[in-house]
């Protein structure tokens, strides 16, 4: 038994690292315990075929606030960008690709009306997302038993909405709970534009374009603008290099990071967390235990439902976190050709989602625990920006693919995987003819693999669906949205807590600030 730390953080995901750096700077003696052999959680780089590496979870950095990158001095700790502010290209089988670069929508035959409509839509959404981004940087206000800080937070939120102006305020209230299918159809004529917008609203969720909450998840994604991103970025060395910089920043501030130190359980005594037991049996004590693991893993797996009130357990069991996104990693002998795409744009974020109807149809089978016959895909060729990921002249494709339910009927057998991979390749062939013959090696990671690689229950992107009933003061569950769990000394700092997932760092950041504030007022 050792008592040399006063804070234990379970998990060196990016949120755990941000939390560690913030607490260490405030003078806490922090130890981060990570089960994997490297930091980063779902922001990691690894080899998937001899000589080929890829960001095995998240592949774009687009929500981590630029101000936080600066404050943590990540450049000093080794962060370099291979690409910044990437545009998105919605690939079309007929080569009439649509390119979205900030507010600018371009395609050979895109009408002026739609171009204008997109520019206005982009600016309008940015203004709403900025309000949300403001709320993301603070702990969510509590409605019952609130203190002055909660009331101030609510006032601030109300004020931010008011300052949108009367028309926009009305509009955000109108569209806030709509679905993206209806909104995109209302705003645009062009089918490519509609489906490109809708794709971004459902990416990383288990929802289809007609689901309520999809406008909300679109706003969620677009907070990226407010955090200082003009589009996705790719770190040199992949997302793992970003995590390494975070780990270096935390270490420089005095935090200790122990890898291959999985936590088997959180020790609770008389309703208070007193430490953890490692997989090895080693016991570590600390008065503050913070979990970067998702809420279900933390509360069911590490604490155990027996230590908690039954009503709270009921809420934790109710968190929707059904993973739908898979990753496909391809090692390529050469750069695939994409007819109709300017070679200079091949390094953009590429999206393959032919139509709103197609997106709807891709989702439908998932309701019945089947995968999409024609999956939708987000991909990039990171080697165009960072050749170090593959042998000279060779390339890597990193693709996020939906919908591939974690609870596939019959399970993810070898046959099911082969079948799904063939479906993905068939989709890629429509825009990259001949790609199949370039593939020297491939790796498909479906939700159960994501669950085991990163320890995320259900393999869910956000550690819990992004929807109104699971956001803000409802995240992870109502009454416990301010990071403190109903076990004294136990906190959540991961994507399952407010504001949510994506490589954003704010859950870890807010949690640390809340702990510091608690101590200061105690």
């Amino acid at each position: 038994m050792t008592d040399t730390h006063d804070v234990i953080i379970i998990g060196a995901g990016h949120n755990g690292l941000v939390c560690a750096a913030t607490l260490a700077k405030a003078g806490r003696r922090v130890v981060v315990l990570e089960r994997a052999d490297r930091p980063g959680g779902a922001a990691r780089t690894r080899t998937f075929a001899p000589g080929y590496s890829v960001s095995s979870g998240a592949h774009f950095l687009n929500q981590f606030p630029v101000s936080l990158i600066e404050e943590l001095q990540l450049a000093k700790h080794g962060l370099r960008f291979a690409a910044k502010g990437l545009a998105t290209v919605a690939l079309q089988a007929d080569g009439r690709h649509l390119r979205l670069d900030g507010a600018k929508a371009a395609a050979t035959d895109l009408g002026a009306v739609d171009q204008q409509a997109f520019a206005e839509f982009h600016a309008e959404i940015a203004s709403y997302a900025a309000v949300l981004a403001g709320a993301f940087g603070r702990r969510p206000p509590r409605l019952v038993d609130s203190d002055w800080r909660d009331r101030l937070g609510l006032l601030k939120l109300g004020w931010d909405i008011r300052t949108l102006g009367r028309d926009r305020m009305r509009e955000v209230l109108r569209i806030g709970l709509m679905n993206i299918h209806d909104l995109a159809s209302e705003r645009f004529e062009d089918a490519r534009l509609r489906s490109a917008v809708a794709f971004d609203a459902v990416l990383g969720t288990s929802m289809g374009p007609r689901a309520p909450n999809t406008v909300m998840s679109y706003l969620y994604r677009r907070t990226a603008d407010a955090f200082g991103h003009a589009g996705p970025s790719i770190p040199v060395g992949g997302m793992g290099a970003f995590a390494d910089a975070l780990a270096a920043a935390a270490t420089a501030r005095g935090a200790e990071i122990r890898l291959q130190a999985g936590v088997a359980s959180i020790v609770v005594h008389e309703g208070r967390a007193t430490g953890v037991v490692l997989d090895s049996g080693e016991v570590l004590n600390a008065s503050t235990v913070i979990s970067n693991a998702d809420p279900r893993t933390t509360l069911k797996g590490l604490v155990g439902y027996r230590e908690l009130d039954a009503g709270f357990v009921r809420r934790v069991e109710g968190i929707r976190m059904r993973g739908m996104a898979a990753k496909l990693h391809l090692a390529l002998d050469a750069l695939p050709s994409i007819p109709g795409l300017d070679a200079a744009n091949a390094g953009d974020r590429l999206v393959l989602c032919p139509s709103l109807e197609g997106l709807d149809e891709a989702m439908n089978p998932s309701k019945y625990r089947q995968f999409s016959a024609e999956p939708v895909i987000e991909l990039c060729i990171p080697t165009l920006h960072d050749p170090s990921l593959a042998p000279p002249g060779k390339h890597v494709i990193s693709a996020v693919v939906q919908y591939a339910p974690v609870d596939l009927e019959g399970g993810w057998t070898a046959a099911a995987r082969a079948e799904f991979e063939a479906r993905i390749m068939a989709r890629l062939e429509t825009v990259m003819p001949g790609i199949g013959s370039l593939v020297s090696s491939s790796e498909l990671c479906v939700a159960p693999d994501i669950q085991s690689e990163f320890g995320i229950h259900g393999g869910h992107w956000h550690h819990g669906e992004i929807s109104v009933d699971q956001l803000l003061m409802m995240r992870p569950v109502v009454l416990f949205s301010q990071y403190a769990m109903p076990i004294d000394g136990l906190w959540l700092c991961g994507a399952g807590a407010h504001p949510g997932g994506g490589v954003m760092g704010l859950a870890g950041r807010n949690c640390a600030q809340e702990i510091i504030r608690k101590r200061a007022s105690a």
Partner: protein
Amino acid sequence: MNTLATRPAHDPRAMLETPFHPRIAAANGLQSWYNWKGYVSAERLDQIEFEYFAIRNATAVFDISPMTKYRIEGPDSEAFLNRLFTRDVRKIREGRVGYGVWCDDAGQVQDDGTLFHTGPDLWRLCSQERCLDWLHWSALGYDVRITDETASVAALAVQGPTSCSTLRAMGLSGIETLKPFELRSFPFHDGELMVSRTGFTGDLGYEIWTSTALALPLWDALFAAGEHFLIKPIGSAALNIARIEAGFIMAGADFVPAEQGVRHGRSRSPFELGLDWLVDFDKGQFTGRRALLAERASGSRYRFVKLDVEGNKPATNSFIFGAGQRKVVGTVTSAVWCPTAKSNVAMASLDMPYGRPGEELWAEIYYMRELKWTRVMARAKVMETPVFDPPRRRQTPAPRF
């Protein structure tokens, strides 16, 4: 008991019948029925005074089959129940019965009930409210099986000073050695009767549990044996007088079950119902523990008291005033004139800090005689013990009358 009938009580097609229904219907001269959780139940069969005095002077039989009953079994059953209940159920040994309450996360009482430890890793939970979903949520992480056996177990309360003699005459030999809150099984026809020395009257009395198939044979044997001991079937109205006299609270009357309350702040914690003795902070985690610890530290909002009210007009639904008769400090939840104790008893929920033992308060009582309403302010004194608590309730062997 349950006044919130959802279906017309007189419409038998809308209601379930208990296994004893044929006998009770035949005996029910007044045909006064009510809806107890979906079952046709007798409110009174005869003059309420006769029924009440059967409880206190002879043997009264009340059909408790509609009571919600859960069978709880499995290796984790004790641990599970300890997480559910606020008291330490490990102290309820096999062959014993315990009274207890369970709370929601906010430490508000959901219901009270009796827990029968009927065998190794085997229990029966009897409650006023249905709570299967709550039991299931509470069971996550425990190896237990929970079955609703409300409809498959027939049960009678046999209460009163001659109840032991009646059961002996029925052939339950040795029943007089059964201690309060103890249970024992007796062979009966081709099955058995489980008898517990429990009840809701504060008197000497038993509850008999058996299969529905043996219900009518049980009734017939009981009434044949009890004839000399003035056995009488009763309804809920007489029972209600007895339970108030004995100082027992009832869900739905004296507190709002937490899961049913709609308005914020209407529910009560065990402390606020005077049930401090049922809360054990030393046994480990149970639902509501955190909230109750906080309440113990910061103080309760309410106090539950028994009041000895001056005069003989029941203080039904009365406001309770402080000593100066100016300020309303609480309301009465149950009140009745107690014929045996010859006192006018009320139970009330008061704002803190009112209701200290011995404190004198005032009950505002309205009563009507021939369409004329009268209001009186009656002195109401906080009592520490119930007005009815005879030695026979506890004596073992049970006295013969």
